């Protein structure tokens, strides 16, 4: 006369805590709604109708860093913007990941000059670099899936 009778035999699934947590993290990773330059347009393209990033559970872009897991640095980071970027990163709760989208965010790209930070990894730790100027939406999606692969391999001992 309990729940068991209503649901029938559901069987048992055995897994590890690691797998469950990593699976849930990858399948609802919320990016920070944060665009800088040209790459932000392609990032919007990736979220729009043709490429539809929500297939990967990522349609929710949070405008607040407090609610987001992934920072996609889409575009060139100027010296004036770098402290702001770092502040946004510090405001994000753990666990958090950073994806450097495009050549400018990865290494400065064509702008080797006084104004642009030569790679956003000077400011924040980067997990995945996506090349291209700007990368195609497919390129961004590939970068995100690569990040998912990385997250799935995280160990319980690293969480602390």
């Amino acid at each position, binding site marked *: 006369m309990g729940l068991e009778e209503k649901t029938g035999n559901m069987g048992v699934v055995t897994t590890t805590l690691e797998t469950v947590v990593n699976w849930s993290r990858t399948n609802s990773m919320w990016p920070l709604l944060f665009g800088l*330059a040209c790459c932000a347009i392609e990032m919007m393209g990736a979220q729009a109708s043709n490429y539809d990033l929500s297939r990967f559970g990522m349609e929710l872009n949070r405008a607040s860093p407090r609610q987001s897991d992934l920072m996609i640095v889409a575009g060139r980071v100027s010296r004036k913007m770098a402290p702001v970027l770092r502040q946004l990163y510090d405001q994000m709760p753990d666990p958090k990941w950073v994806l450097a989208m495009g050549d400018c965010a990865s290494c400065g790209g*064509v*702008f080797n000059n006084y104004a*642009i930070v030569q790679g956003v990894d000077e400011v924040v730790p980067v997990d995945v670099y996506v090349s291209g100027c700007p990368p195609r939406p497919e390129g961004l999606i590939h970068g995100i899936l690569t990040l998912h692969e990385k997250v799935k391999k995280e160990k319980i001992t690293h969480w602390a």
Partner: protein
Amino acid sequence: MTNIREVTVDELRHLVSDRAMTGETMLLNMGPQHPSTHGVLRLLLELDGEIVVNCIPDIGFLHTGVEKNMEAKTYQKAEVMTDRLDYMNSVGNNLVYCLAVEKLVGLDVPVRAQVLRVILTELQRISSHLLWLGTSCLDLAAMSVFLYAMREREMILGVMEMISGQRMMTTYIRPGGVWRDVPSEFVPAVQEIVNVMPGRIAEYESMLTKNMLFTERTQGIGVISAEDCARYGLSGPVIRGAGVAFDLRKARPYSGYEQYDFEVPTYDTGDIFGRYMVRMEEMRQSVRIVRQALSRLPAGPVLSDNRKFVPPPRSEIGVSMEALIHHFKLWTEGFNAPRESVFATTESPRGILGVFLEGDGGPKPYRVHYVTPSFVNLQSMPLLTRQHFVADVVGIIGSIDIVLGDADR
């Protein structure tokens, strides 16, 4: 490097009224990371309750030093940097730069290349307006328009990719013409866009123009008069939305725009809704121009045959010693331009886009300066937002259609 930093609120206090000092009004920081500032714009708002008393834009978060970088490159190679200024109008940036270089060294452009330039800049105008439509409606909480607009934008990006291999940063327009001839699929693909677009524009309008949720947020908001437009030196859809029928394609035609039959749409309200109506009509006019251009696309060369400035095609290099020398010289040293300064202007989707180019007799520009519509139009923010609600500020930013890459350079 160490002295480039963010301006704190305290340092901007001299720009706000005395009431802010006594605490009667409140200072609110908006941006640079804000979903509705269309890039990294920072606004310092002085608020009386929820009413904006003053609005101080703080720009430079995307300052890229493009102009300085261009001084270190030859005329051909510097063009690659121009795409990334106003990334919604990369073809138009190439065009205005090439017009300036052509003016500086006296290059002629073949007719076919001119027609191709017109087709591409008009397609780019449509794609820029589509993205504006999507994002600014997103700011007004209309999500679906964004998805529809991006669907059509992908068709245009597909054409850009077809001709140049790149979706956004094409660098397809080169000094003396265009990079190479278009593939045979180009004309059918553009024809498809031309056929589809009028119906799609009507679809957007059916969702917005008479929608009360949209009109309540746009009509009577961010009003600017024609006189104020002139005082601030604004251009583009902002002034046409205020009833000024000024378009450089008509007033000072370039690339053969005088041969096309099109109208300059205007709307006399000067508010967000007026700018919206103008841009929708501009997309229709762009479709009209592309249709005419397709029908008159002549056969012939697409690049000038002036070998002192334009590299020879690959087929010539194998058989002609002179062509090989030209190829080598143009791609290593570049061409020398006279010690003169020129100014070229075009009508970008945002307004008057000009480039000032000064040669010093060598292969690299002495000074390049872009006069950009976003920078000029952004000045009107304090005027447009005065006495409006905070919620309307996002709509107003969207309506002047700024691209921060264009404003900060």
